[in-house]
């Protein structure tokens, strides 16, 4: 990779200041960002390490799970309060990447990166999560704006994410066998915001809500309700791992499995 300067601020104000510089990029767990640097897909002059900011931690209340931005996937997966209160979230975290990636990768990094095949965007969108940043709060609906694109300003840092706890929820993904990224991942949730179905891995613009499935499941929360609900192949990814038509089919299969899992 190209060389850069590195700084590890110990307070948020310094981190924001550092990110105000030209070509400065934030580093969280590095499990997406360091591969990006190695492939020279990004050439920052300054890398701002967020690990010293104390943004790690998990709080579970009666109605929400709040996770600090630099909390690792392994920490979320292993947290017994999350496992009890919102098991689908713990399971999602436990399925990200692999053991080593989960020991370093963070929820803030995953959401800020908005990889179109990442898992966290699906649960954030499906539960109408709130993202807390250094300057404001954002709803999940307004946060995700396209592949690798979010509402974040260049010097804005996610500090925490709050997930309203759904009554029923599950996440099922069809993984690429080597990278373990979702070829298609579907998170279904029924809770205060109603029924939401969020699909990752499939769309060219990243995570999206499946309106037709949400309507069907609102009428009847069962895998059978999804019979015949088509997913248009238009706008879906076609690549060496699968065609858009294949992904469209997978969306239906994963959604039915997710509802079945959520019921049990």
């Amino acid at each position, binding site marked *: 990779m190209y*060389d850069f300067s590195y700084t590890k601020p110990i307070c948020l104000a310094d981190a924001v200041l550092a990110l105000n510089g030209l070509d400065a990029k934030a580093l969280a767990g590095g499990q997406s960002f360091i591969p990006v640097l190695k492939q020279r897909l990004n050439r920052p002059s300054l*890398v701002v390490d967020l690990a010293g900011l104390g943004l790690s931690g998990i709080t579970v209340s009666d109605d929400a799970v709040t996770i600090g931005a630099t909390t690792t996937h392994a920490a979320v997966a292993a947290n017994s309060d999350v496992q009890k209160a919102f098991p689908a979230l713990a399971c999602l975290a436990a399925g990200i990447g692999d053991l080593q990636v989960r020991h370093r990768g963070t929820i803030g990094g995953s959401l800020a990166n908005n990889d179109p095949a990442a898992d966290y965007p699906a649960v954030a969108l499906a539960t109408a999560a709130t993202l807390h940043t250094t300057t404001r709060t954002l709803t999940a609906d307004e946060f995700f704006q396209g592949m690798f694109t979010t509402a974040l300003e260049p010097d804005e840092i996610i500090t925490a994410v709050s997930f309203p706890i759904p009554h029923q929820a599950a996440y099922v993904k069809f993984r690429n066998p*080597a990278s373990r990224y979702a070829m298609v991942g579907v998170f279904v949730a029924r809770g205060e915001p109603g029924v939401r179905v969020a699909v990752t891995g499939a769309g060219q613009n990243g995570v999206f809500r499946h309106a037709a499935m949400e309507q069907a499941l609102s009428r009847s929360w069962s895998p059978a309700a999804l019979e015949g609900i088509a997913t248009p192949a238009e706008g879906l990814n076609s690549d060496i791992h699968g065609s858009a038509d294949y992904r469209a089919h997978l969306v239906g299969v994963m959604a039915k499995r997710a509802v079945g899992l959520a019921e049990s």
Partner: protein
Amino acid sequence: MPQVSLTVNGRRETIEVEARTLLVELLREKLGLTGTHVGCDTSQCGACVVHLDGQSVKSCSILALQAEGTRVTTVEGLAAADGTLHPMQDMFREFHALQCGFCTPGMVMTAIDLVQSHPEGLTEAQIRHGLEGNLCRCTGYHNIVKAIAAGWHLMHGKPVAQAAE
């Protein structure tokens, strides 16, 4: 040039690095610890797995500077000073869990992490799930899984349940 201070295999080291130096490069090129391997460009293969503060991590996906103040253990840090193999290394030998050996350091480091984080027991399914970040092109994984199951018993002071054949 920036400097990084960390403990590697029990020894305190302070090394000059570039910001872009990866932890695996520091280990291999600056410290001569070439047991940790670079097997892919994509953070998938796990030949570079080491322990950082007790957790298995991919050293190709960590900047050396991120390891400031940490304790790193590589495969060279496993055997005793007199050459006695770590029980996990011994079980890899016993169960023929390697052929070319390229993935083996990463496999052994991951294996030890799995055993240490499962004091209550380690099922075959948990072993296979735990190995998802380590790819092997030679063995087909079965003997690796057997070696790790046996390693769990030895590391927890129990007799090995099944003979190697």
